[in-house]
């Protein structure tokens, strides 16, 4: 039987500690307490290391010593989602039904439909859930609801979907209250901590492009009226590459952190303001540099480039936020993208012109 087969295979994981025998075969039992290794895995995933392959085998798992009346908690097979869930269950008896979401978290998988009605119905049948529990209720995380139709799950599987709280931390209270969530448990937040944990992945994802762009500016800095010179690379290329990296770090860190306080609702506007602040702060610094390094034309270029870059980067943070709509993002992109491209292109154009006429490098 496939359940037992996959059960044995799943026992190879270090976070399991035995099996629970059921009418549908042996079910692996997971440790409710997270180990140092689990925490390290979460940390690595936060930095984007091996994140797309941080998975749990789909199927049924036991926490504690569950029986036919124990709740069935549905989860995604992204190991971080699974760990957050089992981490709040010490001392409890429950079943965890892990769906195959290809290693993607509940919210994103629900948006794609992989965390969805079809997969729930299929997985309930595959593990023989109706043989294991006497009740007919599935606790599905509320953030899975965009992919799940509770009425359809009931029609097709006989199981009633009860939407659990947004945050796993509230799950014990939800279960203890007879599967009732307070209004607060139903609302997503986007607090300072929620935003801060996203910064590492912002840095890792954008970092390679920022380094590439910095390298291009560094090398092009060698161009000048007298041809190519390494003196030019040092004088104009080096500070230019540094400015690109500064604009990137500034936006990727302060964009998420200062989001609520940046003016405007559109993220592109928030980013442009953030970039303008950096550019304004840098102008005196740039003007104090030797003219052969950064001429006034260069400075004008950076005043355009930095806000354009910041605007684009913070606009990209819409994907990580928890309150932006597709229609809203489409609208802001329609206006912002052409402006960002134009400002960036004119800025780079001025920068190149500056290499040739702004004093250049008299090597």
């Amino acid at each position: 039987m496939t359940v037992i087969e996959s059960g044995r295979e799943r026992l190879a994981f270090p976070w399991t500690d035995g099996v629970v025998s059921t009418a549908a075969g042996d079910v692996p039992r997971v440790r409710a307490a997270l180990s140092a290794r689990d925490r390290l895995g979460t940390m690595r995933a936060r930095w984007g290391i091996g994140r797309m392959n941080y998975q749990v085998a789909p199927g049924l798992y036991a926490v504690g010593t569950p029986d036919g009346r124990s709740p069935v908690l549905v989860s995604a097979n992204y190991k971080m989602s699974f760990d957050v869930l089992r981490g709040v269950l010490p001392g409890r008896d429950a079943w965890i039904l892990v769906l195959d979401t290809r290693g993607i978290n509940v919210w994103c998988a629900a948006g794609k439909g992989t965390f969805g009605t079809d997969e729930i119905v299929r997985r309930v049948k595959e593990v023989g859930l109706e043989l294991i529990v006497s009740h007919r209720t599935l606790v599905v995380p509320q953030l899975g609801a965009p992919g799940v139709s509770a009425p359809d799950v009931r029609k097709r599987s006989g199981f009633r979907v009860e939407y659990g709280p947004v945050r796993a931390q509230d799950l014990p209270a939800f279960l203890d209250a007879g599967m009732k969530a307070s209004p607060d448990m139903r609302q997503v937040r986007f607090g300072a901590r929620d935003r801060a944990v996203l910064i590492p992945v912002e840095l890792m994802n954008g970092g390679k492009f920022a380094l590439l762009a910095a390298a291009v500016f560094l090398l092009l800095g060698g161009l000048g009226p007298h041809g190519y010179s390494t003196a030019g690379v040092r004088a104009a290329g080096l500070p230019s590459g540094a400015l690109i990296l500064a604009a990137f770090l500034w936006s990727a860190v302060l964009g998420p952190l200062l989001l609520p306080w940046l003016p405007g609702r559109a993220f592109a506007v928030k980013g442009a303001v953030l970039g303008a602040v950096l550019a304004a702060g840098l102008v005196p610094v740039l003007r104090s540099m030797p003219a052969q390094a950064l001429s006034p034309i260069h400075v004008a270029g950076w005043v355009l480039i930095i806000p354009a870059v910041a605007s684009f980067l913070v606009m990209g943070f819409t994907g990580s936020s928890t309150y932006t709509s597709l229609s809203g993002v489409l609208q802001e992109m329609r206006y912002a993208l052409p402006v960002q491209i134009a400002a960036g292109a004119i800025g780079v154009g001025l920068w190149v012109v500056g290499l040739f006429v702004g004093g250049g490098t008299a090597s």
Partner: protein
Amino acid sequence: MRYLEGPLTLSYDAGRCTGCGMCARVCPHAVFAMTDGRAIVADRGACMECGACARNCEADAISVRAGVGCAAGILAGILAGTGPTCGGSGSSCCGGD
């Protein structure tokens, strides 16, 4: 925190509501509320178009163009010639929890 409200596509036909309360339960931004056994739109501007309400409404009283408000996904969709797609590998939205 509030986002752009003008272009939102959420629409609700109160006449069809059966009062099951599912929309109010699944909405992560309390857009719907229950009063006198019927759903009302309490805060339309907070909608993020996730589509959970419409998908879970047995009476088909709610419609919304569901999608992910993700600039990177929309850009990827434009470049690939498809619609907005969430998350190729490396998209930051699909790594949080």
